[in-house]
């Protein structure tokens, strides 16, 4: 009888110890901004059959990593390596390039964004989004005096690709025209909104909010030119978001 | 015989010439046992003759090599030396019931017999007929649709006998056919063996139940330690001892 009691006590104590240990671990492992990302070489040597799956895993990891750090400590040290890894393993994974480029913009590395997009365009020459985004990035971040022209070149290249939207050509024209900086920036962000998915749209709205006047009249005047250069549906969606808090 | 692994030594004779249904000459069988592959000699020169139309009993204490002898005769094992001759035209004319048989859990009794019939190349019509006939013979018609997994030992034994007879064999080898059967079952099996004998079939069975052997067999052989130490008719045995038990004890302990 005694033996049984002792046995039960021992087992219960051990179980309690197991639970207590786990519960007492720190709530969250310190979020390490620098994460080990293997070089693409390592995975390229692995089976081709699972390359895309590995790319997908790292893509999801990348999205999560970005989400965790961009609003927190803002350190995205491993992001470039991740973007490179995913895009090397899966060169036709368009979303990875585009997400990566914008995320790297947040990581204060627009130069790397540009490189990534160029690689993306090399691997996917039939995809107009790449040259279109390249144009945007040149305009937004380059410091050359003739960046407008370079950006316009990219837009023209994009427009030359079959099935690209019509407004790309118009954007090129706007850039080469005489309008002010703000006006051109508005056009760029409009294009990003039109071309992009939910993530890009958030970025576009954020970018526009930064440069648009706050008064309703001025805002409407500033946004008006987008009517000509954006597809109707996207224009309406964008204006809905920009004028959300305003009285009709 | 064209079965894999059957009949080495001096070659297999065709049935027509010999009167023997089973003819085993100087069979030796050695197996490698355990991790170190220790050589153990199970059969040490078995000589056995079973005449056509006989009901033959193979007796002996446990470990004498009875089951091994039957397996070598069937080609399930290859003899290390010696010869095997079956007086029938191949395994298509043989029926075999192994000791403690185990069959496919997931099949019903009927499905299992159908499978066995297929293995003998019977066509659909003949299969159906034969399966139903045998189910009647072993009184398993009611349980024919139940999965073998649910059969009792006695039922398994009976389906085992049925599968041994599915091809209407000339030579029937039964290893402990009475195990697990209730008195009714045992009587049924005895009747089956008697009927086979009446139809001129050869039956050989191993058994520990000497009363059954006395009732059914005309000739017997007694094995011990891998050899046949006595072979003859039941009458000859009873000349030398008051009962078969006494004769068996006498021979085995000599």
């Amino acid at each position: 009888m005694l033996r049984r009691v002792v046995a039960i006590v021992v087992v219960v104590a051990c179980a309690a110890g197991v639970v207590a240990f786990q519960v007492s671990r720190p709530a969250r492992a310190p979020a390490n901004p620098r994460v080990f990302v293997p070089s693409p070489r390592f995975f390229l040597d692995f089976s081709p059959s699972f390359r895309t799956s590995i790319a997908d895993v790292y893509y999801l990891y990348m999205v999560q990593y970005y989400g965790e750090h961009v609003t927190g400590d803002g350190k995205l040290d491993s992001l470039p390596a991740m973007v490179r890894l995913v895009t090397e393993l899966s060169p036709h994974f368009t979303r990875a390039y585009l997400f990566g480029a914008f995320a790297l913009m947040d990581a204060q590395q627009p130069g790397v964004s540009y490189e990534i997009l160029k690689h993306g365009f090399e691997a996917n020459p039939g995809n107009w989004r790449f040259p279109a985004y390249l144009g945007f990035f040149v305009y937004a971040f380059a410091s050359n005096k003739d960046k407008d022209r370079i950006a316009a070149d990219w837009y023209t290249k994009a427009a030359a690709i079959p099935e690209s939207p019509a407004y790309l050509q118009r954007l090129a024209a706007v850039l080469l025209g005489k309008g002010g900086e703000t006006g051109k920036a508005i056009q760029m962000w409009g294009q990003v909104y039109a071309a992009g998915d939910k993530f890009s749209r958030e970025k576009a709205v954020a970018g526009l909010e930064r440069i648009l006047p706050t008064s309703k009249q001025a805002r409407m005047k500033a946004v008006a030119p987008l009517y000509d250069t954006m597809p109707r549906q996207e224009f309406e969606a964008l204006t809905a978001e920009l004028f959300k808090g305003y009285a009709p | 015989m064209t079965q894999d692994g059957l009949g080495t030594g001096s070659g297999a004779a065709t049935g027509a010439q010999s009167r023997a249904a089973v003819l085993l000459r100087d069979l030796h069988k050695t197996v490698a046992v355990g991790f170190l592959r220790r050589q153990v000699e199970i059969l040490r020169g078995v000589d056995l003759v079973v005449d056509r139309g006989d009901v033959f009993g193979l007796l002996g204490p446990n470990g004498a090599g009875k089951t091994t002898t039957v397996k070598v005769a069937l080609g399930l094992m290859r003899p290390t030396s010696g010869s095997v001759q079956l007086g029938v035209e191949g395994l298509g004319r043989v029926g075999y019931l192994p000791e403690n048989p185990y069959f496919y859990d997931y099949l019903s009794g009927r499905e299992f017999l159908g499978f066995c019939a297929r293995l003998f190349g019977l066509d659909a019509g003949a299969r159906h007929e034969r399966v139903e006939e045998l189910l009647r013979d072993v009184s398993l018609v009611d349980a024919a649709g139940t999965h073998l997994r649910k059969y009792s030992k006695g039922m398994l034994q009976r389906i085992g006998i049925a599968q041994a007879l599915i091809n209407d064999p000339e030579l029937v080898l039964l290893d402990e056919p009475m195990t697990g059967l209730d008195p009714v079952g045992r009587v049924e099996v005895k009747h089956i063996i008697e009927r086979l004998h009446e139809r001129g079939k050869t039956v050989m069975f191993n058994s520990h139940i000497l009363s059954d052997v006395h009732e059914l067999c005309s000739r017997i052989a007694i094995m011990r330690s891998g050899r046949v130490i006595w072979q003859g008719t039941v009458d000859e045995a009873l000349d030398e001892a008051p009962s078969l038990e006494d004769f068996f004890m006498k021979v085995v302990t000599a």
Partner: protein
Amino acid sequence: MKQLLAITINTFKETIRDRVLAVIVVFALLMIAGGLWLGSISLGEQGRMIKDFGLVAVSGFGLIVAVFVAASLVHKEVEKRTVFVLFSKPVSRAAFIAGKFIGLCGTMAVVLAGMGLFLFALVWIVAGEASGMVLLAVLMIYVQLLAVVAVTIFFSTMGSAILAAVLGICVFVAGQLSHNVLALTRLGKNPLTEALSWVVYVIVPNFSAVDVKAGAVGEQTLAWGQIGLWTAYILAYVVVVLALAALVFRRKEF
């Protein structure tokens, strides 16, 4: 031929009724649904995520089913001694091996088809894409698994079922890395290692030659000629492996 058919049908019945199989299939379906969740955190890449991870799940669970069922197929018969019932009838060892293989292939076809159609429907519903490539990818996975089943059956004729299962999985993994072995053969540093690499390269089935999964997510365009050639290669490989298995099995005693 009739025996081959009988054993094939029997094996199919045996494996498809295995409840363990059903559990695995359910797990596979769960995993595929897990791809849905992954898709939801992927910023609009549901289609790709579900396709990719779904195919990995089909591959993985298909492998588990193939290996564990194949490993036990032969082993179970020997262990449960149903082989006695089988080989005391005119059944060739080769027909046995072939029948086991084909029967299991039938079951695998049902399982993979189920998972494949489910994945196809999932992709259609979630991403609005009727992706025929997904079905083709599943078909290619099936072809790969044929080779794995053959190799596992081969290993199971030689001994333990668990070892056969483990080796089957190893061969699958090795097959995925086949092109690495090819690279080794071209290093040319040492004629001995080069020769050894060639031997390994030929023996291990090549699963990296055609990658339909990448095609399913848009990473590759596929040449039908290539796929056809590779399928023929795998079928030839299966024939060789099964022949070897039959040879080993011929020597076996029960």
